[in-house]
């Protein structure tokens, strides 16, 4: 791991000295800096490259949200975290735009170190500094323009139910990601237990969703939708892969937590495409020409056009946003390598579902030692076929 630099900002000196002492063991890996105010932090960023900034929310003068907004504008590749004692809804909403992760005080030392380590870890996935800036600059993923209106309309119905909100959220991949991102942040602190969008929506609560809709920070705006990207197709494919992967995980009898990680991994696997294609539409045109069933060729084309693969970009974003480590790992190693380093069952299930999307039947791995042996392959093929059948019946 390359040495990376972390900057802590807090107006309370005792907090900074506590962190300094607590992090003593990481002195070798991390170059740690401290600032007592937003202005001091910005001045430091002028002279010192900072990979991760962790700031308090409420500070006299410039507050945490203002500081992070400035950091995003000036140094978009710096990962932006908030460590705040405020955990009320208004503060979350105020900071939701420029903030990539929320942590609440008091924060266990392991959690704080883990969150920073995760962000540092994904930096190896995207080595190009320019690409990191592009990914880091994302405040809100591109969404179809009508989605905000829809959300406002649904949320302002007097007897609006959760299922109506969930329906709107599920109609768009970016929204799914945003909702999961919010729930994953430590304000809600339950990243390992999210099984579905409805669970995430119910954790957030209608009030928060309504407030977010009004603020326009999550459901509105965002980067413009890439002109040559079919959002509906992307969303449908993601939903189908997620459905298949979840079925596989469930029927294999994996633990609940693993099932939910499989679902999220599959759902958000192609998230990075929203940013990559928007940034480089010509490059995406080249990628589109590759037949999708040839997954290795697609990966090669992505690498050639964008500088990293779509799953790498997705994993980078998920890392910035503080998703669970197994999810980030499983996304990062897509498409699952046959003869590469061994990957988790989650990664296998997602890789399988992704191939299944473009192939009627997925061929067994030629390597007889592979975890995904012919027996598993045939079982999973059957599971996916059954799922598609029941979906077709119900529609």
């Amino acid at each position, binding site marked *: 791991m390359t040495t990376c630099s972390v900057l802590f900002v807090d107006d309370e000196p005792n907090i900074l000295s506590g962190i300094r002492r607590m992090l*003593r063991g990481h002195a070798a890996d991390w170059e740690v800096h401290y600032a007592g105010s937003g202005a001091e932090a910005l001045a430091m960023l002028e002279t010192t490259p900072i990979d991760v900034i962790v700031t308090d929310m409420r500070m006299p003068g410039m507050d945490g949200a203002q500081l992070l907004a400035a950091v995003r504008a000036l140094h978009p590749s710096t990962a932006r975290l908030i460590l705040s*004692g405020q955990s009320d809804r208004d503060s979350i909403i105020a900071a939701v735009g420029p903030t990539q992760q929320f942590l609440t005080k008091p924060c266990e030392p392991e959690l704080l170190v883990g969150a920073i380590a995760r962000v540092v870890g994904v930096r190896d996935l995207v080595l190009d500094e320019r690409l990191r800036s592009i990914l880091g600059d994302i405040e809100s993923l591109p969404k179809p323009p009508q989605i905000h209106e829809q959300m406002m309309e649904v949320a302002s119905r007097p007897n609006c139910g959760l299922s109506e909100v969930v329906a709107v959220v599920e109609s768009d991949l970016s929204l799914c990601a945003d909702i999961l991102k919010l729930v994953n942040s430590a304000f809600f602190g339950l990243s390992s237990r999210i099984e579905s969008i409805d669970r995430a929506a119910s954790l957030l609560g209608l009030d928060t969703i309504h407030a977010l809709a009004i603020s326009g920070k999550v459901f509105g705006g965002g980067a413009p939708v890439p002109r040559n990207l079919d959002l509906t197709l992307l969303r449908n494919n993601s939903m189908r892969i997620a459905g298949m992967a979840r079925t596989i995980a469930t029927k294999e009898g994996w633990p609940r937590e693993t099932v939910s990680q499989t679902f999220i991994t599959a759902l958000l696997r192609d998230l990075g495409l929203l940013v990559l294609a928007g940034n480089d539409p010509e490059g995406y045109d080249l990628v589109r020409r590759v037949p999708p069933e040839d997954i290795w060729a697609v990966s090669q084309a992505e690498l050639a056009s964008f500088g990293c693969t779509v799953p790498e970009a997705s994993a980078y974003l998920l890392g910035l946003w503080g998703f669970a480590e197994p999810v980030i790992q499983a996304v990062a190693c897509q498409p699952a390598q046959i003869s590469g380093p061994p990957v988790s069952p989650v990664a296998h299930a997602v890789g399988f579902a992704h191939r299944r999307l473009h192939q009627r039947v997925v061929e067994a791995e030629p390597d007889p030692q592979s975890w995904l042996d012919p027996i598993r392959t045939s079982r999973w093929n059957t599971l996916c076929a059954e799922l598609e059948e029941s979906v077709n019946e119900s529609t």
Partner: protein
Amino acid sequence: MVVQTDRFARERQAAVEPLSPTEAARLALVAVHTDHAVVLADAHVVIEWVNDAFCELTGYARHEAVGVTRLSLFTHTVSATVVAALGGVPTDQPQALELLTRSKQGRPYWTYIEVRPVLDHGEVAQLILLESDVSATQVAEHQLLEASRRAELLAAELSAEKSVLSGVISSIPHLVFWKDLGGRYRGVNTAFLSARGFTDPAEVVGSTEAELDSSDGSGSFAQALHELELAARDGVAVIDHHVNVTDADGRTRSLLLSVLPQLSPDGHLEGVIGVGADVTHVAELERALAQANRLESIGQLAAGIAHEINTPVQFVSDNARFLADSFGELLPALRHVEAILAGPEPEPGADAADRLGQVRAALAGVDLAFLVGEIPAALSESQEGLSRVTQIVRAMKDFSHPGSGRVETDVNRAVESTVQVSRNEWKYIAELELDLDPAVGLVPCYEGELKQVVLNIIVNAAHAITARRTATGTTELGRIALRSERSDDVVRVSISDDGIGMDDATRRRIFDPFFTTKEVGKGTGQGLSLAHSIIVQKHGGQIEVVSEPGQGSCFILVLPARWEHVNQAEAETHRP
């Protein structure tokens, strides 16, 4: 058109006997001079003679009438009855007709025609027709009929209206009664009955209060009524007098009682009307609103206090982790050194140098210089953090202590603990100055309510300063100043800010319930209205406000400082 009225039927029965020729001849003489129209006709109603009155009535000259049938003189179609009577078929029975007809010139009139046969040896020899204009009677009769119909209708309407009215009165949830001058109930409604424990108006109506066998027990009702009625009997209306009474179920009810003099149309006092509006649930609503405001501020405070506590907990826990790590290095190294030193006394020279080398090696992994510098600091900062938490928790406990009733209260301390718990509301917005006069001492107060008022005003001050800072784009802290002072009989607590201030229109409305200048969801608009009712109504004090747009605001709470000035009765009840 023939109108056959009931009168027609009666008259036909009353018709006189047929005439004899002698009588007819005599009558004919009379006929010349009478005002009634008279027609002499043969048995087939062919006219033989008419008098002048007939000519005048019908408009026909005598020569036009004579020789034709009476029937043929009608210029309009007539009913079968008329045709039968005047159609020329002799009948020995007298008949009478009443019909609307027209004169030759077209003048419409009601005519009454009596047909009297003159019998000669049992045969109809001649007919005498007596005709008269009964238009006037007819119209009068119509009017009479109409009038009686209207009267019936009116009676029906009145009775419907009466039942609606009595339904309305009885279903009004307020108590309604009316009495005569002797104090006897003349009417009551259902709400009145049920409040007093009766079921039937008859149990009450006709009796005086003293004669009632009411089960509302305490007599609180009779007592409340008595005074007001006296006033009403002097012709003075008593409106919305607040009384608390005990109803038949033993529940205390808050009534707004009005007693009004009831005057007769000529202005004489006839009795009194009483209306008691049951405002028990309104009073409960007010209490609930006060409670909501309290919960709102507690919720807000809780978030702020959590932050105040979270910060020290964060660094105490970081320091604890550091200390654990440090001692995790330090103690094994010390044990190691101890073990090295535990051996037999080293020989001077190589042996001692070797031991020294071992000790150095054991301590090599320990950054003692760092630990020596940091451990004491970590401990003292942790202690500071813990005492901060303790202080906050104590202030919160102090603040949330509601007090019971009006008791001697240390106003300065109440202000201080309120400032302490609300720290998070102002510390990023303003510097807060406290200038509390020790002479203030103990003041008879409702402590919980007083703190609530101070809190509401501090929070408002912080909001006002935020508004000004946003408007002017400054990041400089504002200023909130709290002062207390005691003069002879009153204690003043003033809370001033350098926030955005208010114009006159806003200042006049700030104590109105639900008035708020904050955006939706930022306040119930209850804070100051509540503050007003707590300071003015509950404490018998005053709230003064000085404010100017852009210049900030100052709220001054003026509290009576001595028990003598507090409501005497209250003092008796609550003096510790």
